[in-house]
């Protein structure tokens, strides 16, 4: 698929960073991009399973545009949510559904993370895509 200009820029920025700590620092900063899902709205249905820490996501469709809210008790996880926010929030759901987790690999963030964290990212990605798909179908 074609990435949004914002995402393309982000991928480029990440690619330029060699130092792992700086890369993590950038992920941390992206935690601010998240539309926060307040922890009192965390439920079993918002929960991303297979994450070591608590991670919650909520999807809404405004017309056919994705509204993505998320929250985690790890800032790193929330940073990953921030990246996903830049990739999908406000975008057309049909276009979003063409996305694969490749963009995260391209950034080099997945292999900066422990296997359980990068699995966690994949689980989050899958859950978000499934929700979008389900809600799109429900609209039909």
């Amino acid at each position, binding site marked *: 698929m074609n990435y949004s200009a914002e995402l393309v820029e982000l991928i480029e920025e990440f690619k330029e960073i060699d130092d792992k700590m700086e890369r993590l620092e950038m992920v941390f900063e992206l935690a601010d991009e998240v539309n926060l899902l307040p922890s009192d709205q965390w439920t079993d249905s918002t929960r991303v399973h297979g994450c*070591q820490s608590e991670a919650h996501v909520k999807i809404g469709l405004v017309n056919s545009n994705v509204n993505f809210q998320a929250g985690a008790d790890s800032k790193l996880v929330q940073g990953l949510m921030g990246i996903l926010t830049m990739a999908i929030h406000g975008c057309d759901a049909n276009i979003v559904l063409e996305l694969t987790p490749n963009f995260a690999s391209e950034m080099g963030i997945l292999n900066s993370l*422990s*296997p*359980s964290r990068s699995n966690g990212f994949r689980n989050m990605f899958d859950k978000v895509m499934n929700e979008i798909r389900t809600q799109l179908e429900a609209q039909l």
Partner: protein
Amino acid sequence: MREEFPILQREINGYPLVYFDNAATTQKPNSVINAMNDYYSNSNANVHRAVHTLAGEATEGYESCRSALKARFNANKAIITSGTTEAINLVAHAWGRANLSDGDAIILTEMEHHSDIVPWQMLAQEMNIELRFIPVQKDLTLDMDLFEAAIEGAKLVCVVHISNVLGVCNPVEKIIDIAHRNGARVLLDAAQSAPHQDINFEELGADFMAFSAHKMCGPTGIGALLVTDDAFDEMQPFMGGGDMIETVSIRGSTYQKNEQKFEAGTPRIAEAIGWTEAIKWLNSVDIKTEHKRILNSARWLANQLRNLGMKVYARHGDNDAAVVSFLHPTMNSEDLAHLLDARGFAVRTGHHCAQPLLERLEINGTVRVSLYFYNTHEEVVSFVEYFTEIMERFA
């Protein structure tokens, strides 16, 4: 192929090693040895749940073994154990104690290895279960009529795929079919078949399959139990400890849902990494061709030994293993093995952990030559030459 196995360069008493004890354990290629070496030198860490780089590498290495097993044998669930023996004991404890009850029957065969007898004897004693042993006939095959007659009321059939003493490959498709039609689960002891055949677990249809890495060019201390999803769901935890739990409190614990439920404690990490390489090695071998080649050598050897007056216990049908068990009419087997060792020939003697089979054959043991893919026909020829010399000098 031989140059990949460093031990094959070894000399024994000044003679090149001729390793004919492959049914006991196989040798390891450099790729296996180096992978473990590399793990300990570069990536050693405990697996699961940790964040640091080494722990990630170790976890990926360990789990790659499970993936390699599932891919090679086409299985959905691969539980990593310390070997065939632990895999069978795992079935007895995790499945047997939860699914059998007073008065149930288990079918075994007289061809079983002790590892597929003793766990069931212990369970039978504890739970008042009947063990029915299918006899081995004069022609060294199982009495399938008696098997069909014995199946009623049996909940489990435990059968060795290939006998480690005789090399005989049992008709497991037929056994599985009859067992399943009668509602019995089937445990396959594949310790000897996993190294010698391409086995498709799902297609074959057994419920459990146990085997060891060390008999298929992998390290010691590791093996596996393949399980179908149905049978897996019937299993209760066996050993308790770290890694197999989800939560622990002093009020009680909950368990993992996947294979880790049966892998308590720090697992065999280096061993899993070595085994992965062994599976890769085996995947690269043209097993059908190699099997035919060593089986032909075994057939030739059996004939030579018969001509020299030995009693040979083998069939050597197309699916049988390249194993030649034999006895000298008078000479003590261990004496023979000592003389063979003097010229570098490694063979095994004794009961091969299959005393009930030997009892049926009315012998105490055999001398066993067992070939693997790195053995050559020249080695077999030199064996016969030296064996002939021994006969002339000592018998």
